[in-house]
């Protein structure tokens, strides 16, 4: 099962994610970018899903760190904004809009896992 790490400052989103995907994915959660980095340091993760708007470290900043330190990890950005503007496809493999769709997430995780070398 793909190992994913979800980073979101809204705890309800984290528990929802775990509940939805407990049979399909190995779900790790973190409530902030710093916590998430600690999780990544503990063991390998296939794909990270980072919420865009978080206090202290936003999703893009976090994905930047992931890209430089764990370049083989797939990187998805989760956001409520429809207009994120042009994003660097090397940094963000895909943007998922909230509220997300279960099937869409599964597909994106699979794709991100394959596309990350």
């Amino acid at each position, binding site marked *: 099962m793909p190992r994913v790490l979800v980073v979101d400052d809204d705890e309800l989103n984290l528990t929802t994610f775990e509940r939805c995907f407990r049979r399909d994915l190995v779900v790790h959660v973190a409530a902030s970018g710093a916590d998430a980095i600690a999780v990544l340091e503990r063991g390998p993760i296939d794909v990270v899903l980072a919420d865009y708007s978080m206090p202290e470290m936003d999703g893009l900043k976090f994905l930047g760190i992931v890209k430089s330190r764990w370049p083989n990890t797939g990187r998805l950005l989760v956001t409520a904004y429809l207009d994120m503007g042009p994003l660097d496809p090397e940094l963000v493999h895909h943007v998922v809009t*909230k509220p997300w769709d279960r099937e869409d997430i599964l597909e994106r995780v699979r794709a991100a896992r394959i596309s990350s070398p």
Partner: protein
Amino acid sequence: MSPPSSASALEQAWSAHAVERERAAAITAAWLIVVLVPLWGAFDRLLEPALFERFLVLRAADAAVTVAALVGLRRARSLAAIRRWSALSALACGWTIASMLPQIHAHYELYTVGFSLVFWGVGLLYAWPPSRTAAVFLLVLAAHVGGRSANPANASTEQFAGSLFYLGSAACVALFVSSSRRRLERAAFEASFEREVQNHTLESTILTLQRTQEQLIASEKLSALGRLLAQLSHEISNPVNVLKNNLGPLSGYARGMAAVLRQAKPELSPEARRTWQEHEIDYALEDCEAALADMGAAVGRIRTVHADIRAFMRGEGPTREAANVLDGLRSTVAMFKRSLPPSIVVREQYAPLPSTSCQPGQLNQVFLNLLENARDAVRERGEIAIEARTSGENIVVLVTDTGPGVDPASRPRLFEPFFTTKDVGKGTGLGLAVCYEIMQRHGGAISLDESYPAGARFVVKLPVVAPSAGAVQG
């Protein structure tokens, strides 16, 4: 108002004013003559009883001419006609007395003074152009001189010279009075006309200001609502996400538990049966799925509103391209027509439009929203007309339907977010607000044609911002 048109407007107003003024003056003068004739008759009988009957005929003839002039004055429409009739009555009066004077023996001076009333009357009542006044006076004086030449014996040369001197001076003074009256009247008229023009300009300026203010208030209200919506949209996305995505697992849990409970029911202990009854588990098993389905539907509705709000906030980006609005309009209408029953007729009329810098997808959304509103308005049967053309520097698209039209009370709020006349659950009230926002971003406008008599007509105005000016294509 530019000066030349103001000057010609002034002349027009002045001549219209002059017709009424001169008619009133002439009618007053004519009535004066008619009223005074019997008095003068009494005067003749007292002073010149021998000449009374002859004079009465002359005075009666004068009165008759004056009455004819009165009728003519009432009917006259042009200034020239009024002046003809008033000159005629003045001349008749002057000629009458000029023809009487040479026959008088005893009271020559008194009649000369009476004669001078013609000049004073004209000078005080009429504001004719000086040349006309002078002409009338000269004619009257000529009659006086002519009368003297015909009857040289009655008055002495001194008397005649004195009367001529007196009447000539009266004519000069009256001429001066008449022409100054004319100048004063003209000056007063010009001043009041100017004041009227200024008032008019002021009024229209105030009206424009009021309208601009209303528009400003409306757009400020809308943009404040827009900011609120953006925040709201963002704030509710997490809770909506949680609600939506927990419903699936929750339904799964419920189904699993229900299956287990139904299987275990026959083997339950008496105590468990009591608990079962207490909590109405039979009912709960039946109702649980329905309650979850209701929640699912409700979340679905929230998501629709949320999606609408997001569509509303979308497109703030500056990505514009040169496109022909007609292409998008045609394909939007074609797509829309597929969703219509055959009882709704669609009429399309397109003039060639120039390319313009715009967000074509956004404009298509405007058209689609208007078309969908039109469809909702005509319900089962009716007609929807789409027209596109250029008007000055703008592209104009009209969407007209044969529905019941927009109720006047709803008109001021038509473009407010969340304002809807549709049934609950049928419309979020964001369609026209979205259109408004999009047109604002394009520097254009969308409005309801309030003068359109039947149904509703929406007017979309888009300024042509030509990347390649003059590139007109069908």
